[in-house]
């Protein structure tokens, strides 16, 4: 089911938005509107969000991502168009309906956390419940429950300034989870965190979403992050949607030159090799492991296949999630006959062009091994894609400014 439908949404800032709309309809550009004193937020944006989906909105700074997100709970009042949440058009709802929407159905996580400095962690998390008028005991219980979900047991009584950035954002996330809304809006929620913590948070968000079946709209300006967590990606530029699709779709069929610049790379690819692209294999299985153990490892980290190595790190092969799943249901004890031993491998010096070629045929992570088949690391799709994007990132940013 589609839980959010955005239809022809336009937002123009400034004292006379109607006038701005007229200029837009007359085909004037964003620049011309700016000269006439209007700031264009978003223009004619339409898309739908499926229930339980994690939709990423991506684009350069100033492309209208925040404006779009803030229209969903009416922090920005759209100048034109509709947003249907569930079966209600939020642009027409009364004050009471709006409060109810914000209290129970849509909650938000902010880039700079936006925690109240005078409140303890638990009181921050309970804020949304307090506003709803829920009594103190219940809201404390629910706040603590939410804190457990984000891995912040025993921090209830601390104050925000005593926490690191990553922990503060967990509090921000817990505050949004505590109200048990179906929809979560996250505006660059992880952008202020350092890369390691950010990666952890992305993984945790993905697993929380799987557990709790939330619908999430997540904003980022970072392609890496978008590919890591998004089911689908909405690409924006200058207030307009340029392309919507899964990461594969966007990578394989970039809609225009702008998207292409994000994702495509021809010239520099020969300089990248498996060695420079690989990351440490974080979880591996061993031939003597039981199917259940391996399955648990995999669901924790949400891989669709896992590499099997001997204790001395010699690569044996890989096992897919589907095979494991079947084996567990059939009650098998060992994974040895599930292992695909002919899976392709990369040498450290394998060039990117060849890796791309292999990836087209092999949907799983590619192991990098040395001449004695010892596992050195893995090359994931995300890594490849983001490496391609990064080598292009600077010219892209510069182009868009001009």
């Amino acid at each position: 089911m589609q839980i959010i439908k955005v239809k022809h949404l336009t937002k123009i800032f400034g004292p006379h938005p109607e006038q701005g709309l007229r200029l837009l309809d007359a085909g004037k550009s964003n620049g011309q509107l700016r000269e006439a004193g209007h700031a264009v937020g978003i223009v004619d944006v339409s898309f739908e969000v499926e229930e339980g989906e994690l939709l990423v909105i991506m684009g350069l700074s100033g492309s209208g991502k925040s404006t779009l997100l803030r229209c969903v709970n009416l922090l920005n009042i759209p100048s034109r168009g509709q947003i249907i949440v569930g079966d209600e058009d939020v642009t027409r709802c009364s004050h009471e309906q709006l409060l109810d929407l914000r209290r129970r159905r849509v909650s938000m996580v902010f880039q700079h956390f936006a925690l109240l400095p005078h409140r303890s962690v638990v009181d921050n998390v309970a804020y949304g419940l307090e506003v709803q008028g829920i009594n103190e005991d219940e809201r404390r219980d629910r706040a603590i429950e939410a804190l457990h979900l984000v891995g912040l047991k025993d921090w209830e009584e601390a104050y925000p300034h005593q926490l690191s950035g990553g922990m503060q954002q967990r509090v921000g996330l817990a505050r949004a989870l505590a109200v048990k809304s179906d929809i979560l809006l996250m505006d660059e929620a992880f952008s202020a965190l350092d890369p390691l913590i950010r990666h952890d948070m992305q993984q945790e968000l993905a697993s929380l979403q799987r557990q709790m079946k939330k619908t999430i709209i997540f904003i980022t300006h970072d392609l890496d992050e978008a590919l890591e967590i998004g089911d689908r990606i909405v690409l924006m530029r200058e207030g307009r949607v340029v392309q919507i699709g899964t990461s594969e779709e966007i990578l394989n069929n970039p809609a225009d030159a702008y998207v292409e610049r994000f994702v495509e790379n021809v010239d520099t690819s020969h300089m990248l090799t498996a060695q420079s692209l690989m990351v440490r294999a974080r979880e591996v299985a061993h031939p003597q492991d039981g199917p259940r153990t391996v399955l648990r490892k995999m669901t924790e980290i949400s891989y669709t296949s896992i590499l099997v190595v001997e204790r001395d790190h010699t690569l044996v092969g890989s096992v897919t999630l589907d095979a494991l799943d079947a084996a567990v249901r059939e009650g098998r004890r060992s994974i040895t006959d599930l292992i695909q031993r002919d899976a392709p491998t990369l040498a450290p010096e394998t060039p990117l062009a060849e890796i791309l070629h292999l990836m087209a045929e092999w949907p799983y992570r590619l192991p990098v091994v040395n001449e004695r088949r010892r596992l050195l690391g893995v090359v994931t799709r995300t890594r490849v894609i983001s490496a391609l994007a990064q080598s292009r990132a600077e010219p892209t940013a510069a182009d868009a400014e001009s």
Partner: protein
Amino acid sequence: MMIPTIPKLPLAHGIDVTLDWLTAHFAFITKGFSHVISALIEGIVSGLSWLPPWVLIIVVVVLVHRAVGWRVALASALGLLLLWNLRLWSATVETFTLVLISTLISVLIGLPLGILAALSSRVSRVVMPTLDFMQTMPAFVYLIPAIPFFGLGAVSASVATVVFATPPTIRLTVLGIRHVPEDLIEAADAFGSTLRQKLLKVQLPVAMPTIMAGVNQTIMLSLSMVVVAAMIGAGGLGGKVWEAIQRLEPGQGFEAGIAIVILAMILDRSTQRIGRSPFAKQ
């Protein structure tokens, strides 16, 4: 050549006539108010004077200790003992009471006004220039019209004091609320707060340190004004200074002056950090 003399504008006359008219028609209200306040002041003064000074000293020292720590508490104890020894205790109690009442009234007026001015630009366009006017006018000018409305003595003194001392509370309330970070306001809105919830749960608490800095300034201005107000018979430490001037007794004047400094330091130090304490761990 003859320069035609332009007649003087009858500004003073106009103000006098207006005040006379106001007095004639409204003094019964203000006099009634005056009775209530003066009863309140007398009640507090006689209550505080009924307690032996050492009891009050202990109470003050304990409060100061809890609010700001033992150093200031110790200094306060020494200062208060000195006041007692100089036989200025009852004058100090009177002055303290006037400051207390004036500050309470200032906060009761200033806080709501500051909130309104912070939230509505229309209100602030009226309030802010008025504040500038109130504060730059020499303080004792307020004393003159206060008398016909409130009579000679403590109530007129505290009314003039309130007029003079409220502006910082208003100003810093406005400043504090306006400077609440935008994303906190947004968070409050995003979770469905009503205007009232946003004010009480987010804006006021976050602005509290700034507001308290304003209240601290109000207290200090009240103290300085209460001394000036001795000219219309407010008594207290200011009265002692005034007596000393009239009798040309510099020694007595200095004793009373030192007492005012001691009171000022205790009030200042113990209220300076109040607004910040909720941020630290309890």
